[in-house]
């Protein structure tokens, strides 16, 4: 199979990024459980769940919250494979890399579960101390499991909120909840113009590909990419100036105003009650089974 050079890979990456975003918006429009809720209530309850995830030290609680996100995803018509892939794709790469050393006794001492290596003598290497036996400890495994579960539950909550809420509604809800408006406006515009720049970048890559026969050296590709990056920077600077003029022309005076059309209905109230009851039960049982 023909190996892709990094320019072609970037082109594929750009196209995929747009596809993913369009797909995500598609899910936000489905008639599911979370999609039908007022985004203000959704943001507040998800924030409460995130806080609970961040402060608990009980793996059962973290597992419970993670399982709740799966049930909610299913009730919101998000395909399970798509949802879990989004969450778990990066966890082994980033969280796993951080959590892995913590399972060994030289980072987390404790009751050994499995002995990996028996050294002739303990090693002292700069600030590091390696005992005579390198083992995986129960405390280490528990710590790593809690860490990975916490990340999985937090990422699942965030992904679920984003997948089930249209970006524009999410921003309007943040404004209704008194988040700084200029910040929200900048977020909205950043998201809007990222797509424009992805399109421009994609067209530049395609224009290059249409004019190149055979393979070019990596060095030449790097030179081309760095020149294009400069061009994009210049283009984005010019565009930002023009957009600012367009905003001025339409009455922008430095104060962002938003129009919200949210309605807090009985099902939103039911959702808020359910979430806080769930959190109350967690606190209650954690207290009972200390």
């Amino acid at each position: 199979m023909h190996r892709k050079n990094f320019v072609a890979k970037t082109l594929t990456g750009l196209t995929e990024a747009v596809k993913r975003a369009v797909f995500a918006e598609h899910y936000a429009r489905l008639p599911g459980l979370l999609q039908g809720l007022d985004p203000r209530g959704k943001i507040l309850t998800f924030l409460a769940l995130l806080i609970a995830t961040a402060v608990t030290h009980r793996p059962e609680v973290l597992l419970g919250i993670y399982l709740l996100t799966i049930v909610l995803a299913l009730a919101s018509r998000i395909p399970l494979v798509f949802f879990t892939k989004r969450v778990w794709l990066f966890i082994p790469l980033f969280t796993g890399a951080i959590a892995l050393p913590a399972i060994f006794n030289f980072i987390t001492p404790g009751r050994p579960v499995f002995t990996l290596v028996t050294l002739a003598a303990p090693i002292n290497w700069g600030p590091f101390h390696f005992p005579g036996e390198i083992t995986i400890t129960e405390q280490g495994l528990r710590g790593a499991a809690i860490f990975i579960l916490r990340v999985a539950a937090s990422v699942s909550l965030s992904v679920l909120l984003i997948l089930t809420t249209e970006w524009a509604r999410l921003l309007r809800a943040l404004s209704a909840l008194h988040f700084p408006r200029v910040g929200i406006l900048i977020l909205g515009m950043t998201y809007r113009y990222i797509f424009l720049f992805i399109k421009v970048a994609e067209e530049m890559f395609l224009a290059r590909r249409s004019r190149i026969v055979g393979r070019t050296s990596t060095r030449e590709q790097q030179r081309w990419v760095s020149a294009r990056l400069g061009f994009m920077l210049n283009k984005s600077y010019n565009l930002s100036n023009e957009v600012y003029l367009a905003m001025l022309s339409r009455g922008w005076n430095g104060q962002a105003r938003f129009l919200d059309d949210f309605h807090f209905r009985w099902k939103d109230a039911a959702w808020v009650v359910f979430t806080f009851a769930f959190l109350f039960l967690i606190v209650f049982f954690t207290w009972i089974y200390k």
Partner: protein
Amino acid sequence: MNTPVFTVSEMSYTYPDGLLGLQEIDFTVMPGENVVILGVNGSGKSTLLKLLDGLYFPSAGKINAFGEPLTERRLQDDEYAFAFRRRVGFLFQDPDVQLFSPTVWQEVAFSPLQMGLPKKEVEERANEALSALAIEKLRDRVPYQLSEGEKKKVALASLLALDPEVWLLDEPTANLDPRTQDWVIEFLLSLTDKGKTLIVAIHELEVAEVIAGQAYILGEDHRLAAQGRPKEILRDEELLLRANLLHRHRHFHAELEHRHPHRH
């Protein structure tokens, strides 16, 4: 007597990097007039519109809008700025510049909302604008999902929601398919029927002829090369050749060489 919408007197503009934008421009636009500004790319058409919209300010000379000086200082006053912006709308050449909001609905509601109109009126105006342009179905769409024609319609709807007296339009028919181009021309004609003042920067002579009551030609030296009735101006081939709006075309009919001015 009616107060002129714009009076431009001996106005010049130099860009911050020192490049010359416009030189000694003089003209007056009366209410209800339809003016086209013709010129090649880089002659200063867009710059002139931005000056008329109070986005740029003259390096020399002055602009009066509705009988009062249009200055940077005055536009810093919110009350004056809102009053001016409610009366003058500007369609940018690139719709991506103009559509900066996350959704079509928010885009169309942006101006009335910024002007501090009551929520109910903002909703009414935005709904009416979407329905006038028959784009209600685009209401919740995001800009990157729109075609060029749809983006242009949304940009026009965002101005219509304010219903300004004066419409400054920068290349409104550029990059559109023929059907959408015709639609835009019809839309502009409907505005003239309502007594709106139109100032349109364009380089397509055929479109200019249809919509204009007055035509100004900007030369490549950034000066006003001519102004007058479009029928007279657009028949003056020497003038159009000088302004680079026509070029001499040479082709053959069998053995016979044929030369004539040609427009695109």
